[in-house]
């Protein structure tokens, strides 16, 4: 526009100069006179520019209307392009929203980057719980933390008219909330030292609990509530939306001022640590200080602490560690999908620009500047992308809501940031960036083609020659890119799917069908003498006599959970060299292992008579334990002992490994000890039933409440659900489905794209085919001609794709289970599937080519 104005003003001056020269002035005079007469040229230009800006908007509006009309005239193209864009943009925005909520947004606490999670470590458990006594010593020592706090879960038994109810809660140290920068909206936070033993029992309410249990009554501060047979005073209510992911949902927050048996033992690790780094202190130096302090304590208390070290990670890592690789894989997958979508639409635009080349050439000949033409393409691209983005955002918000609904509620407790997923400023900025990129690509593609085309060739009807060929080559390259990308997504989905399948169908070491599990929480009144053992035996016999129950067992820890540190075991004949040997221990009843359907390899299980606190202890070990400590031998009859104790404990049996830890974690050595040897109150009741295991859960709860209504039951589920809901399985399943979805869409898009290219190429070569057939070529050879072209593209695409997918799968290694990145069956299957679809897609245009009537083809121009 600027140049136009310049041109107009210059032409005026030039005309004056011409006249002056014609009137007889010399060149210099003519020029000077013209300029003087004209007046202030710059000023004139500026004023004209001002006028024209308004005019420009008019022209742009005209272009917009023209573009919309064009789209309406080509509904097929418009519809396809917009649908593809909606899918591509919508999917990437949705996934990005999750990535933003999980990885980019900071945790909702004060200065969250300075928060660290503190652990103790042993070789068998690198990020383990801490012991309360160690924690107290850490607080007294000189660690580079401005604040060090501890937290742990706690179950609160509340007496309600409906019976004893189990509420989830937590116990924290006095400065926990101040560390996070959280203040109660009602009442007060804990005082300093309110977590010292003997301090009054006070509790903070979760906002939701305040609403549900107390009706949002503001007078709740100062009220008392009886939990675990103790009277707690409510001192305040936490803000709405407060959450601490490692704890999950917790209705009641009490302090550590009532240390239980585990808290008092230095060797018992029942807590987790949270700290804030001092200003200017790095995580590395904090870890070094922790290690020094831990080894100092190990020197002071060798019985409990030897070989225990300590470490820390950022709180962000602790919360996001599991999910980060999954989200990155999803983000990469969706970017590939977006790539295919853009390439697809570019291809469509190229085809359209081919068919509009006549119109474009005429406009250029009539004087439209390249800038003007480019503006036209730009506006058309803008229209397409605007509609695609708008619909894509709608699609994304629906997809986000759907995806969140699919996440089980327990999982959301552990990932509370999922609730903040939405179309916020980051996400909208991302959508805008993606849209702008798309507009740029879609504007440049037809413009580039126009640039390199020759005007004369385009103007003549049915223009053959170099222009068509360059387009064919470009179109072919685009299709190869699409096919390769589709291969990468398909291989990724295939590998993830295979990992998920292998995970779920791996050897669990038990018969997981028809098993029901429920957690039993007896009140503290049973902690006296052998009351807990009597109760356990009573429950086992009562449940065992229920109709439909085949067998009953009891265990201290459910299987398919995270590994814990374990207890130190000494194996005679294997010197420890002062290093500790921590083995995960499970306390089980006599009938547990047979109830879950474990496979006994050697020896026997202990009997109910042997499952007694007064009798000597016996062990049943798993295969990994036997292989590790008694390689090549039968462990039955051998003796081991707890570290620091003199009693030798006999091993009476060996079982095949049961998956006590997450399905994708390697098997560890495990010892099974009799439940009643230790007086634990809490246990998991496991029941094998002939009928549907889901339906027996209420019966179990009712039977236990009948015995004593003060006993609370909770977390009733089936073993099958336990497995399918476990973290490893859940993450693998979700990623397999989502990437599978992307791969499916990619397959459709690239196959349709291939069809488009081949069909177009055929239509361009109609004359050539007609000539060939007129000269005597068989129909078969026409098929071969077309299919060869299609086959070449497909082959190049697949091979490129396979190479790229191997590289991509190597990056994704941590998500794979039981399968290599170059898993040959998967690669072969993907190649075959894609080749089949591709051949199908090319068959249709090939048929059309072969059925060309040579006379018509030659006649048509």
């Amino acid at each position, binding site marked *: 526009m600027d140049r136009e104005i310049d041109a*107009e*003003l210059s032409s005026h001056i*030039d*005309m*004056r100069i011409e006249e002056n020269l014609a009137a007889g002035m010399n060149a210099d005079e003519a020029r000077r006179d013209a300029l003087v007469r004209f*007046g*202030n040229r710059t000023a004139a230009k500026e004023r004209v520019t001002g*006028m*024209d800006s308004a005019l420009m908007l008019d022209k742009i509006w005209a272009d917009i209307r023209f573009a919309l009309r064009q789209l309406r005239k080509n509904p097929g193209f418009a519809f396809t392009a917009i649908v593809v864009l909606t899918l591509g943009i919508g999917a990437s925005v949705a996934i990005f929203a999750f990535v933003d909520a999980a990885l980019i947004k900071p945790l909702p606490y004060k200065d969250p980057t300075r928060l660290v999670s503190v652990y103790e470590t042993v070789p068998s458990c690198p990020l383990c719980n801490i012991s309360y006594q160690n924690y107290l010593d850490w607080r007294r020592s000189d660690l580079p933390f401005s604040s060090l706090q501890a937290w742990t879960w706690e179950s609160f038994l509340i007496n309600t008219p409906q019976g004893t109810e189990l509420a989830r809660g937590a116990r924290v140290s006095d400065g926990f909330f101040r560390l996070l920068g959280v203040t109660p909206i009602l009442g007060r936070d804990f005082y300093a030292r309110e977590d010292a033993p003997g301090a009054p029992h006070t509790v903070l309410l979760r906002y939701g609990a305040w609403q549900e249990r107390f009706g949002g009554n503001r007078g709740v501060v100062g009220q008392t509530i009886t939990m675990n047979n103790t009277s707690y005073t409510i001192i305040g209510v936490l803000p709405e939306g407060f959450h601490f992911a490692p704890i999950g949902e917790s209705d009641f927050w009490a302090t550590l001022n009532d240390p239980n048996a585990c808290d008092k033992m230095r060797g018992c690790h029942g807590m987790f640590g949270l700290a804030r780094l001092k200003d200017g202190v790095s995580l590395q130096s904090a870890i070094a200080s922790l290690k020094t302090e831990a080894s100092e304590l190990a020197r002071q208390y060798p019985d409990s602490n030897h070989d225990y070290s300590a470490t820390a990670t950022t709180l962000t890592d602790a919360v996001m560690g599991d999910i980060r690789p999954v989200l990155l894989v999803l983000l990469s997958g969706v970017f590939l999908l977006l790539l295919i979508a853009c390439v697809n639409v570019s291809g469509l635009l190229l085809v359209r620009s081919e068919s509009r080349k006549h119109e474009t050439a005429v406009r250029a000949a009539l004087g439209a500047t390249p800038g003007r033409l480019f503006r036209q393409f730009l506006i058309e691209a803008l229209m397409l992308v605007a509609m695609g983005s708008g619909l894509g955002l709608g699609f994304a918000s629906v997809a986000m809501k759907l995806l969140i609904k699919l996440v089980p509620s327990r999982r959301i407790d552990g990932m509370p940031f999922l609730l903040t997923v939405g179309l916020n400023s980051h996400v909208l900025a991302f959508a805008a960036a993606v849209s702008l990129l798309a507009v740029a690509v879609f504007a440049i593609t037809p413009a580039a083609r126009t640039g390199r085309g020759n005007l004369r060739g385009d103007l003549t009807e049915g223009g053959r020659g170099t222009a068509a060929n360059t387009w064919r080559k470009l179109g072919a390259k685009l299709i190869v890119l699409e096919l390769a990308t589709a291969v990468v997504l398909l291989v990724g989905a295939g590998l993830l799917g295979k990992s998920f399948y292998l995970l779920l169908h791996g050897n669990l070491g038990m018969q997981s069908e028809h098993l029901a599990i429920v957690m039993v929480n007896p009140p503290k009144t049973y902690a006296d003498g052998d009351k807990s053992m009597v109760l356990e035996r009573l429950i086992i016999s009562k449940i065992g006599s229920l109709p439909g129950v085949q067998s009953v067992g009891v265990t201290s820890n459910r299987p398919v959970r995270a590994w814990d540190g374990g207890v130190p075991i000494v194996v005679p004949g294997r010197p420890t060299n002062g290093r500790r040997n921590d083995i995960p221990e499970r306390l089980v009843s006599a009938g547990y292992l047979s109830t879950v359907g474990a496979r006994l390899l050697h020896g026997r299980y202990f009997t109910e008579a042997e499952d007694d606190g007064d009798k000597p202890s016996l062990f049943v070990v798993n295969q990994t334990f036997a292989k590790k400590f008694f390689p090549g031998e039968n462990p039955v009859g051998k003796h081991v002992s707890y570290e620091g104790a003199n009693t030798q404990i006999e091993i009476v049996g060996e079982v095949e490994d049961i998956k006590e830890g997450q399905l994708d974690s390697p098997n560890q050595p495990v010892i099974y000890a009799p439940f009643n040897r230790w007086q634990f109150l809490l246990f998991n009741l496991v029941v094998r039933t002939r009928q549907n295991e889901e339906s027996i859960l209420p019966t179990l709860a009712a039977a236990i409440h009948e015995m004593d209504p003060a006993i609370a039951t909770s977390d009733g589920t089936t073993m099958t659900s336990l497995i399918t809901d476990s973290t490893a399985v859940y993450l693998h399943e979700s990623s397999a489905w989502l990437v599978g979805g992307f791969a499916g869409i990619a397959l459709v898009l690239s196959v349709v794209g291939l069809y488009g290219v081949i069909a177009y190429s055929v239509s361009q070569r109609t004359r050539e085919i007609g000539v060939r057939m007129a000269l005597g070529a068989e129909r078969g050879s026409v098929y071969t001609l077309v299919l060869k072209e299609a086959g070449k593209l497909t082959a190049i695409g697949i091979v490129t794709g396979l190479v790229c997918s191997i590289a991509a799968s190597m990056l994704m290694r941590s998500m794979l289970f039981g399968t290599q990145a170059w898993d040959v069956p998967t690669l072969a299957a993907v190649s075959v599937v894609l080749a089949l679809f591709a051949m199908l897609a090319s068959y249709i245009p090939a048929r059309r080519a072969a059925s060309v009537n040579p006379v018509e083809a030659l006649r048509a121009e």
Partner: protein
Amino acid sequence: MARNDLQGSLDLLVLKTLSQRNKLHGYGIVAHIQRASDELLQVEEGSIYPALHRMEQSGWISSDWALTETGRKAKYYRLTTSGAKQLQAAEESFEQLVKGVRAMLRYA
């Protein structure tokens, strides 16, 4: 010759010019005004262009690039229907202005 300030009447002159001469570029409009007014009106040539663009935006004139007799590219303007109406209105109000000033000057 004094330069008369034609600010207010410039629109009128341009519109009249274009009504008399079907299609004209900026330079031609300036030349025509000078000739038709017997050299009494001298337009500062640069100042015609803001006016032309403003009038185009108002929809009174339309523009097109074309070649002159000497083969130079120039922007030609022509009158639109609403421009013709505007010309009539401007002529009437100018007549009124002149009558009013004359009456004032004759007043004793």
